[in-house]
Every structure is written in structure tokens, then in C-alpha cells.
């Protein structure tokens, strides 16, 4: 499998909303409702912020929301805050294995 396609970078001002796309194929994103999103701050391990396309783990801010249409999943961060500056990766189940997206660097201006 190739990595899922994400924009390399997205930026926004504090308080704004941004959306990150994640495009795969019918063998991964489009074939299963098992898309997750991970946030990774520099030097830290990834942290799951969305699972099963739209669900937030306990403790994750409701400013993070996500959806999927066809082979493309999307993550929206609303009310952008300084601490949201990080790398974000989508991930999809692909029939036994998993595949990550290429990653998106979010910059808070």
C-alpha cells in the first residue's frame, strides 16, 4: 500500500477553523469505516484524536471533528489554539494491515 495523501501543510490563525483531507482508495479509506487521526507534537509519540471515522476518545477536545466521503476522510479543527500546532496523520485499516497518511503540519499563525 502507498501512504494516504494529505496536504503537506495547513495554517490558520487562532480561533479559526482548518480542515485536513486524507485521500486513499477503495482498499483502505473507502472500504472500511476504520479511519483514525493522530496528533504528534515534536519529539513525542502520536496520540489518537479520532477513531472509527468520527469518534473522539475520552479526553479529546470537541474542537476536533472528522468525517468521510468515499475515498476521502477529513479532519476539522475548530477554534484553533496554539497547542494545536503539531503534525497530524490519518490512518486507515486496509484489510489486515494499516496505512498512514503522508502527514500534515499544522501551523498556528
Amino acid at each position, binding site marked *: *500500500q502507498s501512504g494516504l495523501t494529505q496536504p503537506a501543510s495547513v495554517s490558520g490563525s487562532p480561533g479559526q477553523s482548518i480542515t485536513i483531507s486524507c485521500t486513499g482508495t477503495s482498499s483502505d479509506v473507502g472500504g472500511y469505516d476504520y479511519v483514525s487521526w493522530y496528533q504528534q507534537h515534536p519529539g513525542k509519540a502520536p496520540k489518537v484524536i479520532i477513531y*472509527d471515522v468520527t469518534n473522539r476518545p475520552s479526553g479529546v477536545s470537541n474542537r476536533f471533528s472528522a468525517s468521510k466521503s468515499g475515498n476521502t476522510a477529513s479532519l476539522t479543527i475548530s477554534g484553533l489554539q496554539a497547542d494545536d500546532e503539531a503534525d497530524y496523520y490519518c490512518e486507515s485499516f486496509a484489510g489486515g494491515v494499516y496505512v498512514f497518511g503522508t502527514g500534515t503540519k499544522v501551523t498556528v499563525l
Partner: protein
Amino acid sequence: EVQVAQSGAELKNPAESLEISCQGSGDDFANYWIGWVRQVPGKGLEWMAIIYFRNSETKYSPSFQGQVTISADKSIGTAYLQWRRLKASDTAMYYCATTRDGNFRWDFWGQGTLVTVSS
């Protein structure tokens, strides 16, 4: 609370072998999957392989099939990643992650093991 602890940083020469480990605690890991993720410095995350503790079923990402070996000892809740002959291109941070069977996200992550391969 489930926690995952990885073995320490490694500095190896090319062609040497290596095994790194990842131990879970805080639950009965018989019903958990555990996997390894590579992150080359400055690059993205890549899934390598996963293993089911209960029966040692393994799944490898195509890019890593034949390059590494994943194994596990369920009696001590520990998974391993092994290389027979390291290459400079194996230099990376390696994370392990674990989740209960039936979940399709990786809830618990180790702190990472930095592997540097250099002569």
C-alpha cells in the same frame, strides 16, 4: 491504566543484528494487538508489522515484509522487532503501539526507541 515501555536507544554498525522490545502493563494483554511504527527523522509515520498476543498471528506491511521480524511473548506482555542485518537506512525512531482486539485504532503508545545505524 495501560502503559507501554520500550527498550533504550541503540547505536549499531551496518550488517549487525538487533532486537528491540516493547512491554505492556496494566491489563491482561492476551487480547491485544501490538505493532511497530517507523519514523525516519523529519519524515512521516509508517506501519511495519502487527502481532496478536493470543495466537501470535502476524501481519506485515508490504514494504517491510522480509526486512524485519515481529514476535511476542504473551506470558510477559512483550513484543519484539528484529533485524538480521541492519542498514544505514534503518536509522529511525521506532514506536510500538497496542490496542485491544476488536478496536481499529492504536490507543497506547510507547515512548519510542531511536535506532542509529552508522559506521
